């Protein structure tokens, strides 16, 4: 369905040179599967998502959707091809309401549909439909509204960038439940969840570990989790040794 071939991405660094963010990434995502992308901070997870959405340009490589190359397409063209992205930190707007954004996301929707989409992400429609997507909303509320928009797109590929960030424990379960219900075993679409939440990993069909812009591991939860856990423990011991001079 979605295929990345030798994808690299770099940005200008402060010395006028280039800093590589992604290095020769080869990845493929198939229909009906739920993927998790995880890894240390700064590993390139959000950059990878933005490269797929067309927000960041590639420095090398190609991206294919249904075997059609989409590397040259704009963000809106990719959206029309069926790629949707829930931003890690959604932007705020002055004067645009929750209802406005949902209507754009759906294209055509009645009031009942709008109300349901908010209830699905744990928000009361009466309280939110007419509110500005502005400073009056908390980070958690923004995330839920963002996820509602991506679900509204009914896209072929839906990418959720840290859906759990800023969301309370009760709502996380609900949001993840909605994503699983929508995408698990659905032969027409694929979800990619960028996450640091270890509770999300077991429900995904496949986990991709990204570190320093490279794929370090890929496999099922059973295959991958032991190495992730060992890595976390190892880093924790190193940090403690460096900071406190003894090992826990």
């Amino acid at each position, binding site marked *: 369905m979605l295929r990345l071939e030798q994808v690299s991405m770099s940005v200008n660094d402060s010395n006028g040179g280039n800093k590589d963010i992604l290095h020769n990434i080869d990845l493929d995502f198939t229909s009906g599967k739920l993927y998790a992308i995880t890894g240390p901070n700064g590993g390139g997870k959000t950059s990878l998502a933005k490269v797929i*959405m067309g*927000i960041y340009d590639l420095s090398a490589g190609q991206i294919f959707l249904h075997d059609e190359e989409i590397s040259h397409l*704009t*963000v*809106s063209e990719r*959206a*029309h091809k069926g790629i*949707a*992205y829930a*931003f890690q930190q*959604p*932007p705020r*707007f*002055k*004067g*645009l*309401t929750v209802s*406005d*954004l949902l209507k*754009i*996301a759906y*294209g055509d929707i009645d009031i009942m549909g709008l109300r349901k989409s908010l209830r699905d992400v744990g928000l009361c429609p009466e309280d939110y439909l007419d509110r500005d997507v502005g400073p009056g909303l908390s980070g958690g509320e923004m995330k839920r509204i963002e996820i509602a*928009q991506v679900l509204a*797109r009914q896209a072929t590929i839906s990418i959720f960038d840290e859906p759990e960030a800023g969301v309370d424990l009760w709502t996380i379960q609900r949001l993840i439940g909605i994503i699983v219900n929508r995408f698990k075993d659905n032969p027409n679409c694929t979800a990619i969840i960028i996450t640091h939440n270890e509770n999300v990993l077991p429900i995904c069909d496949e986990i991709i570990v990204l570190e320093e812009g490279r794929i370090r591991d890929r496999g099922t939860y059973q295959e991958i989790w032991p190495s992730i856990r060992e890595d976390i423990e190892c880093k924790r011991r190193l940090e403690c040794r460096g900071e406190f001079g003894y090992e826990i």
Partner: protein
Amino acid sequence: MKFNQIDSDLLNTIASITEVPKGAVNIRKDGQPLIRMSSPNIIIKPKEDKPGIDVIVKPGTKNESVHIPVLVTQAGLQDLVYNTFEIGEDADVTIIAGCGIHNESHQDSGHDGIHEFIIKPKARVRYVEKHYGAGSGRGKKVLNPTTVVRIGSEAYAEMEMVQIEGVDDTYRKTIAYVEDKAHLKIVERLLTHKRQSAQSDIEISIEGKGGSAQILSRSVGKDESYQVFKASMIGKTECTGHVECDSIIMGNAVIKAIPSLEAENSEAVLTHEAAIGKIAGEQLIKLMSLGLTEEEAVNTIIEGFLR
């Protein structure tokens, strides 16, 4: 009464009118009254010494509205009108004003509206004024409104002043006096493009104890247009006042925002915020990720911002 197409388009744009509205109405066209009707509680009568009308709302009038739009369609006309609004004690009314100019000629057309509001104690007023210019003539469409408001104790007034598009030159002057425990909210929305020029001077003097006032301005300047926004809040006693001006700048436009606060009493709390900037790239990208083109995303952001 049936309006011709030009009048109908202007009225619909500035006052959402498609037919003669119910209640008190005064539609002025090309310097002459086109329709004038009073209602039992809202009396409209012509001034005797100069062009214009007196609108008198009886005390205690509730949930009524008055429409007083102005149309200028005659080439070269410079219309000048003086309107006085007296809102009776404890009344609650909505006033829909506005001016639409249609100019297909090479001569300038204009309308200068001098409005005075006397809002009696405990009254509530919502005033909406939209300005709009249409027509492909080379003649300028010019609007210069002056508004003087005195808000009595415990009264509330919300004034929404919008310039949608097509007005080449405008100079708007607003002066307000706020008495004890009264509240005034002025909302301005302005869009300029091409080589249009717009200046707005607002001065609010909070004279009564416990009075409050807000000035909220949002504007978009495109192309080669020029805007100046001056907002002055004067607190003469224990009061609160806030000025907020927010602008989106595009193309080669120039925007000046000059907020000014003057406290004449140590219990006055006055604040201001001013921001001018282009549309944030992340906002565009966000809307494009929902399927809008870049142009559609820009228009959506501007439309929301000026709503």
